[in-house]
């Protein structure tokens, strides 16, 4: 489609969705460029899954509108379903079917004849390193294998837009890395991905643009770097030999910063105005004051810092009763 080259792959305007009195989505606007990864970052209950459900035609919004590939999620729902893939939080595979049977079934439900659905299934099993297990019932698979099978099922029809709802929640670190590598492979082939996550490192690694969502509202949007820049420059972190020197150290370093240095758990944090020479300057000041230093580093703010400063609470701590249970 010629118009799709410039048009955003996903357009969300003022989407509102209430469940009873709770506003799961409270007027969300979002644009995602084609061929990119949009990371939707937020804690449990922030509204991420609700937005994915609206965009994948599973749930009707109360108001607002949304288009994917120019197709309205309500009016053009039937056509849209043929062009998106969804991998949810729960590894939606039929445990009693084999890996190949699962993929063949999904392919046939997309309208492919049995033989070509099976061929496509084998291709995906190979790609996702499941060929050997492809003939075994999915109930014998490990969590990581199920998740890969689920991802493969979402890709059966080679959809140009892929929705991944917390694709690595509950996975061990090694499986996580392999799912990340697979997502990166898809993006390299031109797939647009909307990914929800509550893991900051995941958004940091995969997403071109990050939208931070909390209590159903979009509270910040930008690249990982842009979000970090909002916190101002770099930070000097100093661990002292003696806790009792803390006050003296704060006095010594205060004039390097626009704000008063803070101290958490014995770690002194100083927002420095300039990166250049900051370490040398700090060491010089501390040694002149006779304060022993155990460790000293300059680092950029992490998304953790961003989240804390945007929302006033940490990202990975679940909040209120809305948090979803982990799939067993």
């Amino acid at each position: 489609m010629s118009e799709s080259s410039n048009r955003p792959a996903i357009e969300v305007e003022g989407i509102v969705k209430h469940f009873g009195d709770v506003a799961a989505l409270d007027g969300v606007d979002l644009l995602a460029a084609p061929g990119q990864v949009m990371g939707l970052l937020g804690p449990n209950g922030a509204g991420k899954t609700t937005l994915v459900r609206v965009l994948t035609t599973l749930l009707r919004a109360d108001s607002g509108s949304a288009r994917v590939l120019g197709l309205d999620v309500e009016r053009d729902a039937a056509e849209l379903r043929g062009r998106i893939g969804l991998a949810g939080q729960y590894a939606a595979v039929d445990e009693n079917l084999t890996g190949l049977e699962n993929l063949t079934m999904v392919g046939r439900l997309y309208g492919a004849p049995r033989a070509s659905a099976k061929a496509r299934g084998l291709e995906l099993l190979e790609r996702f390193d499941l060929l050997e297990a492809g003939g075994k019932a999915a109930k014998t698979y490990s969590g990581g294998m199920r998740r890969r099978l689920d991802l493969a099922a979402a890709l059966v029809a080679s959809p140009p837009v892929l929705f991944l709802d917390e694709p690595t929640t509950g996975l061990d670190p090694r499986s996580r890395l392999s799912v990340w590598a697979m997502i990166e492979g898809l993006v390299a082939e031109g797939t647009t991905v909307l990914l929800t996550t509550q893991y900051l490192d995941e958004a940091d690694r995969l997403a071109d643009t990050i939208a931070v969502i909390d209590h159903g509202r979009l509270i910040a949007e930008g690249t990982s770097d842009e979000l970090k820049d909002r916190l101002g420059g770099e930070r000097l972190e100093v661990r002292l030999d003696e806790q009792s020197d803390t006050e003296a150290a704060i006095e010594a370093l205060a004039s390097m910063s626009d704000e008063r240095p803070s101290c958490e758990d014995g770690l002194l944090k100083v927002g420095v105005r300039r990166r250049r020479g900051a370490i040398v300057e700090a060491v010089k000041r501390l040694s002149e004051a006779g304060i022993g230093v155990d460790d000293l580093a300059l680092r950029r703010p992490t998304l953790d810092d961003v989240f804390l400063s945007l929302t006033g609470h940490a990202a990975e701590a679940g909040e209120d009763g809305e948090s979803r249970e982990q799939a067993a």
Partner: protein
Amino acid sequence: MRRLAIDTAIIAERNLIRLKRAPELLIGFTVQPIMFVLLFRYVFGGAIRTPGFSYVDYLIPGIIVQNTAFGGFATALGLNDDVRKGLIDRFRSLPMSRAAVLAGRTLADIATNALSMTILLITGLLIGFTFHTDFLHGAAGIGLLLLFGYAFTWFLAFIGLLVTSPETVNSVGFIAVFPLTFISSMFVPVASMPEGLRQFAEVNPFTIVCDAMRHLWLGAPAHNDVLGGVIWSLVIVAVFAPLAVWRYRRAAGG
């Protein structure tokens, strides 16, 4: 329409494969009904008077009807499982027919129903049940059983999509199905029941279907029971199929 037929067949196939892979499900369809037949025949049978028929002849049509009702639990539990595991979300995000998931499931359950019906019938014949009518009536009885079983599956499909946990499926299902099946002519003649209960039993569709079965297999007086059984089946589908589809459209995973 073509889409609906193809997708229904795909889903039915999926549900039948499941059966092969999870043989523990088959125990529910085979061992349990046999146990019920033997308990009723040999524990209660001696004490129950069924004018005109031996108890084993009276019992077998009734217990097969009961079994078709309980067979629907597999539908309810299976759909409930599909919702919780997110499979329904996957199906709903595919460009497939919206009615096919339920149609395929209930269709596959006709096959499991037929299987356990066969096992029950063989058990019945082994312990002394005999057909008193001709082949055509016998076959018509099997047709009515499959139709009624199919209809009742829609009721349990609705329950399975309505509640959130398999435990609730079981308790809601049992609370609904036990009184419905027991307060009927299924195991004992209705005439022995006290006022109130008896009137309920007389209009209970399970009584009507059991009496229809006894007409078709034993030659008991027909009244309008066969027609009544067919009409009840159609009414149950007409009410619960739309309700189940409505729940399916709103089903939320997780």
